[in-house]
């Protein structure tokens, strides 16, 4: 496997008791030295190989090509396997054997598939299954939202097929025999391998899908699997269950027999269930962090999700005050981010002074992008006030009113209260109104560009700065804030066109793009998302990823002795 440096799961807190609790038995298999849920893998599987977990909602869809959310991508990744699989943030072997053969111009990729992979119905997993799956993703009939998003502009003809201009058979993916997959790309895509570990790119068994028709993937028994686990029960709305898939090509690595997942929406309920030993992992709200910080299962992870304020420069055809760069700078520097992450969020989130999050991407020398790029728009009341005075002069007014649009969760409410007070007390003459709406409505107001400031975040879909940088290109699908900079567009596009094959030049392009974005104060970066959990010491070798499946259970095992020792 080619060593990729670009991913590093930031494991912020590892309690010493974890290490102490590991029994010294020999490591029977699996667990080749990653840092799972906080142990250095010196324990071994013992006792019942069962994990009891929770999700905040039921799985909206178990159809690899249709799924769009985190719960779906989590469990589809456990029941299916694509060309590659993410392990601890790095690419590891999947159905594809070894590295792909890439042509000179980087437009043709050939993957050799293993010939011992099987579907749970006994059929072999072949290149045709990939071709069918990928065609299905862009076929307008499937109504996939992620298909066109993930494949458009990447795989040849994907966009034209999605808009109905070309037939699905013209998609740039072909099977050369049963075990060779040839992919033609629209342009060089440096991060293509990491894309193939995403559910949209998973294979599906044509015969099975066509047999099931409308019912495909709606119930546990209308599902097929080629991954380490298969779904055995699905009580919609309340729970679902996975068992080890004996037909999986690497079944001997898989030690876990059963994963039970219950839907728990209330965080306090989750903590109570954890305390009574009914579940092995629960997310913590800020309230519980202080109380549980001593718990042997307490752990904090930094996600690759940056949160920022989108500053819309034009609303309903008229310039907003935010069209003025000094207003933007003043707002970006007037919020004490440290206070926000330490006191208000209190969940392991960290302040961020840029767009690309920490621990997401690094160059060949192992330098993290965030570190290389440095800090922009840091909290600085003096600078903010200075910009603000200038801005008021330029606008010719003493009173400015802006509205902050945000979501409807408890955290968003507290955050927006905080932003409002910070901005109004630091910037004299500024009035901040707030509007809290449900997610779909927020998206609609965003798309309609009908807001002044929006609290927004973005989760990466593949491991490359382009996943973030493309957001703010002039015609970027997610710009929606009327930001336009020619220099920025040039730098971003250069990184995926001329310089696509030159890692060093790309790196510099990304640095340059971020610098322009920050100097324009197009957005006001606020924090990088962190999550706190209580995780039972019995969970071993669970890997944490930042894209696709957030947790990887293929190599996991239960060390029940460790759990007892930790008591």
């Amino acid at each position, binding site marked *: 496997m080619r060593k990729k440096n670009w991913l590093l799961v930031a494991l912020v807190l590892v309690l010493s008791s974890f290490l102490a609790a590991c029994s010294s038995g020999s490591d029977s298999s699996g667990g080749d030295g990653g840092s799972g849920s906080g142990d250095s893998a010196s324990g071994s599987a013992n006792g019942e190989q069962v994990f009891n977990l929770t999700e905040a909602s039921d799985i909206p869809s178990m159809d690899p090509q249709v799924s769009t959310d985190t719960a779906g991508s989590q469990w589809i990744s456990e029941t299916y396997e694509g060309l590659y699989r993410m392990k601890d943030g790095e690419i590891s072997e999947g159905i594809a054997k070894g590295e792909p053969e890439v042509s000179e111009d980087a437009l043709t990729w050939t993957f050799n598939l293993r010939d011992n992979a099987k579907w749970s119905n006994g059929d072999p997993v072949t290149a045709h299954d990939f071709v069918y799956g990928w065609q299905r993703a862009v076929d307008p009939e499937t109504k996939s939202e992620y298909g066109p998003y993930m494949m458009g502009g990447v795989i040849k003809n994907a966009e034209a097929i999605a808009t109905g201009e070309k037939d699905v058979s013209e998609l740039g993916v072909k099977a050369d025999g049963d075990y060779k997959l040839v992919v033609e790309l629209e342009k060089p895509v440096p991060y293509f391998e990491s894309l193939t570990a995403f559910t949209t790119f998973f294979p599906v068994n044509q015969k099975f899908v066509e047999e099931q028709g409308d019912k495909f993937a709606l119930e546990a028994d209308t599902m097929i699997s080629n991954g380490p686990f298969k779904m055995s029960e699905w009580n919609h709305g309340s729970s679902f269950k996975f068992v080890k898939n004996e037909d999986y090509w690497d079944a001997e690595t898989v030690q876990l027999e059963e994963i039970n997942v219950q839907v728990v929406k209330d965080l306090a309920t989750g903590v109570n269930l954890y305390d009574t030993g009914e579940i092995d992992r629960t997310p913590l709200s*800020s309230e519980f962090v202080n109380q549980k910080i*001593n718990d042997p299962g307490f752990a904090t992870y930094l996600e690759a999700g940056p949160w920022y304020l989108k500053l819309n420069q034009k609303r309903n055809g008229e310039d907003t005050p935010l069209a003025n760069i000094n207003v933007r700078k003043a707002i970006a520097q007037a919020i004490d981010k440290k206070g926000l992450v330490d006191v208000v969020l209190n969940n392991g989130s960290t302040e961020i002074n840029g767009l690309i999050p920490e621990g997401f991407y690094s160059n060949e020398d192992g330098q993290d992008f965030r570190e290389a790029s440095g800090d922009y728009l840091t909290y600085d009341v003096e600078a903010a006030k200075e910009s603000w005075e200038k801005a008021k002069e330029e606008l010719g007014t003493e009173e400015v009113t802006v509205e902050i649009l945000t979501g409807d969760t408890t955290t968003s*409410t507290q955050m927006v209260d*905080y932003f409002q007070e910070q901005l109004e007390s630091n910037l004299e003459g500024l009035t901040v109104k707030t509007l809290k709406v449900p997610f779909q409505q927020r998206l609609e107001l965003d798309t309609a560009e009908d807001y002044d400031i929006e609290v927004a975040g973005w989760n990466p879909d593949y491991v490359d700065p382009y996943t973030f940088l493309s957001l703010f290109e002039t015609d970027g699908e997610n710009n929606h804030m009327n930001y336009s900079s020619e220099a920025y567009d040039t730098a971003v596009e250069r990184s995926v066109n001329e310089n696509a094959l030159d890692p060093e030049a790309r790196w510099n392009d990304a640095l340059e793009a971020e610098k322009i974005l920050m100097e324009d104060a197009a957005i006001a970066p606020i924090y990088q998302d962190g999550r706190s959990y209580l995780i039972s010491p019995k969970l071993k070798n669970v890997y944490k990823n930042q894209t696709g499946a957030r947790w990887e259970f293929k190599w996991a095992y239960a060390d029940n002795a460790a759990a007892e020792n930790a008591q």
Partner: protein
Amino acid sequence: MENKKQFDQDLFKRVDRTNEQSDNIVRESRTLLQDAFRSLRKNVFVMIAAVVLLVIVLMSIFAPIFSDYTTREQDLNKSLLGPRIPVLENISWLGLDGMETKTFNGNNVETAKQKALLQYKNNEDFISFDVVSEGNGTPNSAKVEATYDKYAASGFENEYFYFGTDRLGRDLWTRTWDGTRVSLLIAVVAALIDLVIGVLYGGIAAYYGGKVDNMMMRFLEIVIGIPNLVVVILMILILEPGLWAIIIALTITGWTSMARIVRGEILKLKGQEFVLAARTLGAPDKRIILRHLIPNVMGLIIVNTMFSIPSAIFFESFLSFIGLGLPSPAASLGTLINDGFAALQTTPSILVFPAVLISLIMIGFNILGDGVRDAFDPRLNKK
């Protein structure tokens, strides 16, 4: 008997009763209202309830004005301080001294203390320990009760937050009273609107009966059938989010329950003799409804109004539960209780004060409501 009392014979003079005199009313007649007030004043519980409510209303108006803090002023250094009230802070079991007390377990006293230190950011100077059990080296056998003086640790020895502070370091005393005023306003206005619409609608439907009743009730069913939540979200997006959007959202369907109760009662009453009598005497419909029927339903109307006040407060808190409540930084009992609920197991003090207050308001309104109902009910014998 010797001392036989002598009566003046004049006292026994026969009263000359003429027709005119028989119509005279000797004692001044009391109106229903005066009657009601007389009996209200005699009821101790009602008076207590009225005083409590009055105090709450006055506090909700004046406490925020005279407070040293504002409802929105934040200071993260003051985040989550416990309640601390002068004088009362010396009575330790009240828990109003701003101290945080928690029990830590460990193999021995030292490890338990270590845990406490970790929890309280190593502010050793401000933690006092009270060893509950020495322990014998087995896991969690030692128990140490740590008391952490958060006020002193954050350098606010001289400040008093009577109800403590929230996560953002806002004074909960001020926010709670301010929120009480907002909630009372929402609830009372909504309840009054419900009352007027509901009583008239229900009264008219039941009194006229037949087709009118049928049509009016079907319309009411339609109003109830339309999902409230959709209407509320639309309101919030169409109107400026705030007090009025919530009041309107509340009343759009709120009046239906009153209308149905009034209708049910009037259906029962309208066949009774006194209505027949009034109609025979030629009283117009308006008079029969307003003077004969509605006073007889008054008891239920009052009880139901008392109920629509908490349900208004709760609906508002449900809206904040799903994130659609008042815009920042306004507080209401609903938003405060929601914030408090999230911290129920960790900092219960945030929940206690608004919850106690909401209960006091409700108990007050209910006792008052019962008293008023009894007082207004012409059928109850009053001693």
